[in-house]
Every structure is written in structure tokens, then in C-alpha cells.
């Protein structure tokens, strides 16, 4: 039983990271209708820039987070402006292809600018294992989970109460009508990319501080993808929640069956779920009212 609980808890911790990344997928998909396959690479880029920053200046952890937010925002806006904005009005598929190209580009760029070796991402968080009623956790894992909860709450209120958040949902619902309201679609796209990069960056920094920083970190994007599909690509909070499920399922599979099946299990889960609910657990089927 203890083993089971251990697996579930550490699964939740990994799942929190998946959830954060999945929210980034959903954010862009919801606003622009594009699946951003460069999500993991944006994460990687932001994490590397943040890493360089920590090697240059001695930075306490509480300062690292706002710094990551700034870096994420700038990266997101630059990527949107250079690669995505020229694609507005082109078929969605073309834009998706651009994100795939972008993924390869950023991966190479990072190896070129930094290197392909693992680096230790040192944060001021203690490395001391904390034991809470028999379950052993690293402080950074707890920080990751708290960040996840904070982000979930933040996005919930963002989409409900802020004007730009509601506008994002409006654009997702009926783009032409959103134009008629005077909503600037380009602004909405830019905000979506910025927010998505910010949360990807946060996930990247958290992940790198738990493990190490090396170019394989970009695979986190693909690992989190099932979470977004599971929760429903058009539901940001649903995707966030999907992360927890995928995290736990992966850990249980790894613990009881074999570690090799670990990353496959997430995809098995989404295939099963999509057979029953093709729009994901929390995605919205179209309201057709004739």
C-alpha cells in the first residue's frame, strides 16, 4: 500500500508539470486553433535562458519565477511575431507545420548556443528530502505542485473575469463575430502565445531544478501532449487536470509493469478515453442549436 501511495504521490508531482505544459497547449489551441508542436522547445529555450541567468547572477528562488515569467513572455511574443503572425489567414495545417519546423529550429539553436551536455540547474531551494507521514518529497516537487495549483486558479479566474480572457473564449467560439465586437484578433493571438510560453517556461525551470537541464528536456512537451488531449484541447483547466491523471497512470505503469511502458501508457489512456469522449474529458462538444 505504501508503495502504491508513493507512486501516486510522485505521479501527482510529475503530473503537475505535465498539467502546466498541457495548459500551454490548450491555451494556444483554444485561442488560435493551432496545436503548437514547439511547446516543448519553447519550454527548453526559456529554461536555458533562465539557467544562464542563474549562472550569471546569484538569484533567490522567489526572483527566479518572475524572471522566468519575463523571459517566457518575451520569447512567446517574439515567436508569435516572427513565425505565427505571418501565417494568420493561412490554413491551420500550414501553421501547425510551421510549429513543427520551429521545434527543430529551436532545438538546434539551443545546442548551438549552449551545448548538449547536462547542466545542474542550481536553485536556492534546499535539496533536503522532506518526509510527510512516510512520503518522501523534494522541496522543489512541492513547489511544482503548489505552482500548478496557483496556475490553475489563476487561469480559472483569468478566463472568467478578465476582459481579455473572455475575449479569448469569444475568439475561440466565433472569430468573425469577435471581429465585429472590435476585438483585435492579433492581440488575442499574441497574448495566448505569451501566456503559453510563460507557463511552459515555468514548467521548464521547475523540471530542470528537480532533475537536470539538458536538451532532452524538450521531450517534456510531447510527454505532456496526452494530458492536453485527455483533458480536452480546448479546455485549459481540463488539460491541467489531465496532466495529473497522465502523471499518475505513467507512474503506476512504471512501478507495477515496466519502466519501458511508462511513456506509452499515457498514450494508451488517451486512445481509450477518446473512443468514449472524442473531445476529451473536459472539452466542449459543439452546441448545435438549429
Amino acid at each position, binding site marked *: 500500500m505504501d508503495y502504491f501511495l508513493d507512486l501516486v504521490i510522485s505521479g501527482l508531482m510529475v503530473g503537475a508539470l505535465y498539467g502546466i505544459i498541457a495548459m500551454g497547449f490548450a491555451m494556444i489551441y483554444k485561442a488560435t486553433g493551432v496545436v503548437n508542436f514547439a511547446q516543448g522547445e519553447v519550454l527548453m529555450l526559456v529554461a536555458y535562458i533562465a539557467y544562464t541567468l542563474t549562472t550569471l547572477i546569484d538569484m533567490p528562488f522567489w526572483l527566479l519565477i518572475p524572471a522566468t515569467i519575463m523571459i517566457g513572455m518575451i520569447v512567446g511574443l517574439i515567436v508569435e511575431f516572427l513565425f505565427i503572425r505571418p501565417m494568420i*489567414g493561412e490554413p491551420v495545417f500550414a501553421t501547425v507545420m510551421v510549429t513543427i519546423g520551429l521545434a527543430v529550429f529551436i532545438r538546434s539553436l539551443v545546442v548551438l548556443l549552449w551545448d548538449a551536455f547536462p547542466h545542474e540547474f542550481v536553485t536556492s531551494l534546499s535539496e533536503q528530502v522532506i518526509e510527510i507521514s512516510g512520503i518522501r518529497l523534494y522541496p522543489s516537487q512541492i513547489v511544482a505542485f503548489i505552482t500548478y495549483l496557483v496556475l490553475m486558479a489563476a487561469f480559472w479566474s483569468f478566463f472568467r473575469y478578465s*476582459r481579455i480572457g*473572455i*475575449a479569448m*473564449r*469569444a475568439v*475561440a*467560439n*466565433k*472569430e*468573425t*463575430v*469577435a*471581429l*465585429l*465586437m*472590435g*476585438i*483585435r484578433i492579433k492581440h488575442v493571438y499574441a497574448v495566448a502565445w505569451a501566456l503559453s510560453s510563460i507557463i511552459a517556461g515555468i514548467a521548464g525551470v521547475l523540471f530542470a531544478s528537480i532533475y537536470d537541464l539538458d536538451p532532452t528536456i524538450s521531450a517534456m512537451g510531447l510527454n505532456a501532449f496526452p494530458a492536453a488531449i485527455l483533458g480536452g484541447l480546448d479546455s485549459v483547466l481540463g488539460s491541467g487536470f489531465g496532466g495529473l491523471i497522465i502523471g499518475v497512470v505513467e507512474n503506476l505503469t512504471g512501478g507495477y509493469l515496466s519502466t519501458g511502458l511508462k511513456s506509452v501508457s499515457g498514450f494508451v489512456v488517451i486512445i481509450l478515453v477518446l473512443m468514449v469522449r472524442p473531445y476529451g474529458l473536459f472539452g*466542449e462538444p459543439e*452546441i448545435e*442549436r438549429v
Partner: protein
Amino acid sequence: MSGAPPRGRETDPASTTAEGMTATSSALLELTNVQIFYDKAIEAVRDVSLSVKKGSLVALLGANGAGKTTVLKAISGILFPEDGTVEGGTIEFDGKNIAAMEPDEIVRSGIVLVPEGRQLFDTLTVEENLIMGGYTTTQRNAAEALERIYDMFPALTGRRHSVSGYLSGGEQQMVALGRALMSKPKLLMLDEPTLGLAPQIIEEIFSTISALVREEGTTVLLVEQNAQLALSVADYGYIMENGRVVLDDTPERLLRNDDICEFYLGFSDAGARKNMRDVKHYKRRKRWLS
């Protein structure tokens, strides 16, 4: 038929249409020889000129496919998602050419379109829909406008947190109208606001529209299938056919025009209702132009 049908632009010296006459100083919206293409190849609107005086209610009538909706979309600047372009002529609003403006600039300058079929953001609540209508105004103005809309449509007050996709047709039309009024437009354009509504609701909508014009001084451009109803409230009427304005006159004279009566209202000279087959036959037999 008794004699050739009169051509509006010849019989009414007050109308400022085709011949490029200068607009009367009170014209809020002035279209001059507007030509609209879809896909650069299909001519949807040819040489349309119309003018809407400040504080007036102008009806734009015509059969399906006459190009009425295309004209409204051109004014709002939302032809581009359908590959439509204004190729010739000018669209002037308040003395400025708005033909090349972005949709959000057009909204900001005071033109709002209520699209055909209401087009609510059906996944958003009533209040969120209304908030989107006030997207271009400041937060404080939007809050005031919100109260004004609830005063205007008390039925919506109890539904403010309902998802708008599940409202009745009449309530949806109220939301659509309220949403458009949130930004206090100078020119309100309505595309078939009574489509598919019960007669009682239609009456309510029309009394709201005429109250807006008579009491609040809003200028309205109304597209309607129900010609008789539209002409009963309008100050001036235009009739389109096959992408052209074929007639324009005061409602009294339009209603006295035998052709209009035959074509749109289904009355014969004697005032007896003709059956649909006769009307259809008549339609084939008679065209004003071409």
C-alpha cells in the same frame, strides 16, 4: 402592369445616389458606387450607392442573394475571412473613408453590426456576451452600459449568468441587440433581426429599434426580408436585386409602388393576396434590370 416601374434615382431628387453627387451634410454613412468581389472573380455587389442620414432609420430590402448582407459586411470590414474585397467605390462614415480600415477601428469609430442569425458567443454567458459588446469602451463605461441594457431588456436580468447558447430565440435576439448597444454605436446595422422569431417578439424588437432611433437618436440601417414591417418604421428604403440597388424612395412611395407590392408583399393591384405560384411566375417574368 401600369406603366414602367419608376426608377428611384430618377424620380426622387432628394436621393444622393449614383451620379456621384456630394453628400448632404447630414449623411452619416455614404456608399458611392461600391463594387464587391468574392475570390476576386465573383461580383457580388455592383455599383451600389446609398446614404444614411444621421438619426434616420433606413431599410435595405431585397430577395435572398441580392447582396444586402455583403454590403453590411463590407461596411463592417469583415469581408476578408470569406475572401471578399471592395474593389471600387468609397464607403464614407462621418466624412472618413472606412473601406480600408480594420474591423476594430470601424467599431471604434461607431459602427456596429448585429449579424444575421444573432451569432451569440454560445459558450459564453449572457453577461459575458454583453461585456464583449463593450470591449472597445473603458471598463467604467461598460459597467454603466451593462446596467442600461438590463433596464432596456428586463427579461435578461434573471438570465445574466446563463449560457447564451441555451436561451430562446427571442432572448438571444435581445442579447444580440444589447451586445451591439454596449458600445453606444452611432450607426447600428441590423441584419434580419426578426429571422425565425415569433410575431410577438418581432413586434417587441421593432418597437425597441424605433425607440432607439426616435428617442436616443441612433442611426439604423436595417436589412429585412419582411418588407412591409421594415417600411412601416423606416424613413427611407433601398431595394436591391442581383447585387444592385434598383429602387430607392420613401416608404410611402415604395409601398404605393405596384411592383414592390407585387414582388415583396404578394399583393395584387386589388390588394388580394396572390398565391406563391403566381408570385414566383411573376418573379421569373419580370426583372427591373438586366
